[in-house]
Each structure stands twice: as structure tokens, then as C-alpha cells.
């Protein structure tokens, strides 16, 4: 027996409560510049894992910034009904003057939790990403993959059910990335997370997502959506993942080609 993607849906999240992220007709333009995002509409269900895929200039990161409330749309609405979303960047962006545990504790402290409570919770979260032996290490003493796991623990410390990830594994080597994919799937399942994951790596999107959303570039629009429907555990090198990746890559190439002929 294998796990199916519907088994992975968070058990304690009430689906009837509506989407965890609701993007309705969102457009974004910086100053008098060109349109970056054009009328994006996208709902992410609680417990769903959605990958945003696109070439350069599709506004993936801009879209995440809107969801993370770091920026406001020029028109349309972006809502996270459950409160603030947690955000992970391509760089771990840990504070180098703090230990791994202190980095996680800072997130808890800024949310107003008490000293004893945050110490325990930071340890639990680092245990969750299997870094219980690295709590007192400083970022420079950790490998790239370990740092990104601390960043994941810090994001989880925000106690948001929505996790936004902006190409979080792009700077890692292939083996580490593969391990972190597995780790993310495991944590997402155990923590009942809704994930919105930006990537330019088609296989990564298919490896991780329940749904892949292909964005067109300049301006960013939703070009096409794919339901992945491959049972977990998945492997990035499996034939099912490869098959869907081939299809999506072909569409992505068509999208990119359009820009060459237009110019």
C-alpha cells in the first residue's frame, strides 16, 4: 500500500472553512513600470501543496511577497484568512550573531511568547528538522542544508499554517536538495501545512506539489495548471515524475518561445 495524495491532506484542517490562501484578480505594477503580475487568481486549499513554476520575469517572487504581506497588490486582493503566512527565502538568511536555537527563538519572541516556553519550543522545532545536536551551533558552523533546515524551523516557529517558499533549495547541491525534498514532504504532512512553493525547476515542482501552476512571463499570468496525482512517497527520478515533467517542460518552452518571436 502506498500513501495517496489525499491521505496527505491535513486531518485537522476543516476544508469547509474555505481556502488557506485566496488570490483574486491580483495585479502588480511598480510605479510607472510595466505590469509585473496581470490578474492572477489562485486559491490554495488548506493542506494543499501548490508549486508556482515559471521562467524569469514571471513575477513568482513578487506574488509571494504579496501573499507574505511584504507588498500590496496594485489591484485585486490577496488574503491569507488564517493570519500571517511564514516565508522562507532562497538564502537561509539566518542571523549570524545568534545560535541555531536563538534564531528560532527570535521568531517566537517577536510573537510574544515567554522565555521558558520559547526555549522548549525552539528545541522541539529543531528536533523536528533533526538538528537537535546543532542547537547551540552558529550558522557559519553549519552546512548549507543544515542552515536551510534551521530556516525551516524558524518559519515553523511563526505558527502559521501557511508556508511560503521562494526557491528555498535552489542554492543547494542535488543530493542535499533531494534529502530536503523528503524532509519537507514529511514535515508538511506532520504539521498539516499549506505550502505555496516557488521554483523554476520543473521536476522539483512535480516531485513536491499536489498541483503545479505554470505562470507566463512579462506580465505574469496563470498559463496552465496541472494536478499531479502521483502517490507519495515520490522520487524525483521516478518515471511518473519524469512523464509529467516532460509535458510541463514542453509547455514552459512554448511560453518562453513566445517572447522570442514577439521581440
Amino acid at each position, binding site marked *: 500500500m502506498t500513501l495517496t495524495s489525499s491521505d496527505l491532506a491535513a486531518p485537522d484542517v476543516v476544508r469547509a472553512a474555505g481556502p488557506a490562501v485566496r488570490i483574486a484578480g491580483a495585479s502588480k505594477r511598480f510605479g510607472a513600470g510595466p505590469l509585473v503580475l496581470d490578474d492572477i487568481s489562485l486559491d490554495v486549499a488548506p493542506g494543499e501543496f501548490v508549486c508556482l513554476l515559471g521562467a524569469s520575469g514571471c513575477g513568482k517572487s513578487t506574488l509571494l511577497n504579496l501573499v507574505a504581506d511584504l507588498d500590496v497588490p496594485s489591484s485585486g486582493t490577496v488574503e491569507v484568512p488564517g493570519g500571517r503566512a511564514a516565508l522562507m527565502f532562497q538564502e537561509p538568511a539566518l542571523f549570524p*550573531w545568534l545560535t541555531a536555537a536563538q534564531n528560532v527563538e527570535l521568531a517566537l519572541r517577536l510573537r510574544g511568547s515567554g522565555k521558558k516556553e520559547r526555549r522548549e519550543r525552539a528545541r522541539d522545532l529543531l528536533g523536528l528538522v533533526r538538528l537537535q545536536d546543532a542547537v547551540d551551533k552558529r550558522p557559519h*558552523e*553549519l*552546512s548549507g542544508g543544515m542552515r536551510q533546515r534551521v530556516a525551516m524551523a524558524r518559519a515553523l516557529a511563526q505558527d502559521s499554517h501557511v508556508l511560503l517558499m521562494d526557491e528555498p533549495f535552489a542554492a543547494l547541491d542535488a543530493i542535499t536538495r533531494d*534529502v530536503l525534498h523528503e524532509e519537507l514532504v514529511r514535515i508538511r504532512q506532520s504539521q498539516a501545512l499549506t505550502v505555496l512553493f516557488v521554483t523554476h525547476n520543473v521536476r522539483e515542482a512535480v516531485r513536491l506539489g499536489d498541483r503545479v501552476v505554470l505562470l507566463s512571463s512579462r506580465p505574469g499570468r496563470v498559463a496552465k495548471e496541472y494536478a499531479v496525482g502521483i502517490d507519495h*512517497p515520490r522520487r524525483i527520478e521516478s518515471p511518473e515524475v519524469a512523464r509529467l515533467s516532460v509535458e510541463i517542460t514542453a509547455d514552459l518552452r512554448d511560453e518562453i518561445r513566445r517572447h522570442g518571436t514577439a521581440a
Partner: protein
Amino acid sequence: MSSARMSSATVRDDDLASLEAGLDALEAGPEERKDRGRRLLSAAWPPVVAVALLLGVWEMAYRAGVKPTYALPSPADVGLRLVDQLRDGTLLEAMGVSLSRGGLGFLVALAIGTPLGLLIARVRPVRRGIGPLVSGLQSLPSVAWVPAAIIFFGIGNAAIYAVILLGAVPSIANGMVSGIDQVPPLYSRVGRVLGARGWDTARFVLLPAALPGYVGGLRQGWAFSWRSLMAAELIVKSPELGTGLGQLLEEGRFLQDMSLVFAGILGILVVGIAVELLLFAPLERRVLRRRGLLLATR
């Protein structure tokens, strides 16, 4: 879930755990190696040799009679004079007087320079208005302030402290500004994502991130305090002010006593180097090492 599936999931999980443990062990560097005694020894001999060479050249110049003895005494004469000065306490007293003035001046400069730097770094009109002035002041030798300070405050401690502040405050403020300017914008974004606003951003993100630049500014601020103080003491002199190292130098010049002058210079050097080595160098090293900005072996 059936029990068979549970167990297979557990096996997979163990599998991932051991894979990850292996990867972590491979990627994390080996533990830092420390061998204090050896490092100290290898750091100590080059300056010792350099000083010995310098004394040798001096002795040869003395023997060759390059200058009359009152202008160029032998190293041994200066050494004996130094011992005398130390015995009767004049040198130590002068060092104490200067050090307490320099220390107090530095602390006041710290209290003014730090908020001033913060203002320049964070408030745009302030930066536009006085930023260039404050960084320009750094290149003005503080001795240039002495006449103005004497006219304004008269001969007295106020004039001396004014010169120290005018020398040290710009350094400390500039250190703060460059420390904050070097904070990666990503840190502020992370702070915002984690929910930091206003004062929390400064306290938990901006100020700790700016610390290396700030400590560099403190170090330079001390050097400027000390130099300004010597410039001021050389000129601002009166019996009721007490004798600092600068005043000792001036006394030596007045008496045409080269050995006393050399003893004063040595005193100035010793205090300057001691504060640097005992206070600022370890502070800076500590800050940088904690952030992995300093290689362990050097």
C-alpha cells in the same frame, strides 16, 4: 492506516534520518583546532626581532655621533631615565592622568557619537544635512581645534575634552553609519516576515547586524581620542591641570631633556597599544569570530 503501512513508513523515516545525519557529518567542517601556546609564540617573535633591530640601529647612530648627545642620547641612557621616571612615579602618574582623561573623553564621545550615528544612518534629511560634514571632520587633524578650544573655553580641562570630542565623535558616528549601511537588506526583510516593527527591528536586527562596523568605529574612535588628547595636552598647560603625558613631553622640550621626551613618547605608545591589545582587539575578534567572519587559525 494499517499497521503494515505504519511500519514501512517508520522504516523510511529512519532511513531518511540516517541519510541526513551522514550528510550533515560530511558537510559540516571539522571542529576548530586550538593550540594557544604555539600561536602566541609564533606571533611574539617577529615584533621582538623588529624592536631589537631598531635599538641596534639607534645605538649605532649614537656611537657614530650623528647628533650631539643631548639631542640623541643612547638607548641605555633613555632606558635608565625611563627606570628613574618609573621609580619616582612621574611617568606612571602622567600615564594615569592622561588615561583617565582619554577614557572619560572616549566614554562621552561614545554617548554622543552612537545616537548621532543612528540618526545619520536612519533619518534621511539628517544624513543629507550633516552626513558629509561628519565624515569630512574625520580627516581634519584634531590639533587644528586646539586654538579655537582655548579661545572658547580658556586654558583648562574643558578645552582638552572639547578637542577629544571633536576628534572622536565623528569616528564613532561614522562607524555606526557604515555598520548600518552594511546590513544586508535581506535581514530587514526577514525581520519584517518574523513580525518585527519599529524599535524591535532596531533592537533585534539592525543593531546586532551593525555591530562589526560599530566596533571598528569604536576602535578608531579610541585612537582619535588618544591622539587628540596628546595634541591638546601639549598646548593646554597650566600648573593646576596636573601633568599628563603630553604635558610631560612639553616639559622635556622646555628643559631640552631628550630622555624625558623619549620616556613620554614611550608612555604614549604603551598606553595606546595596551588599550588596543587588551580592549579593542579582543572585542573585535570576539564579534567577528562569533559570526564566522574570522578564520580560526591565524
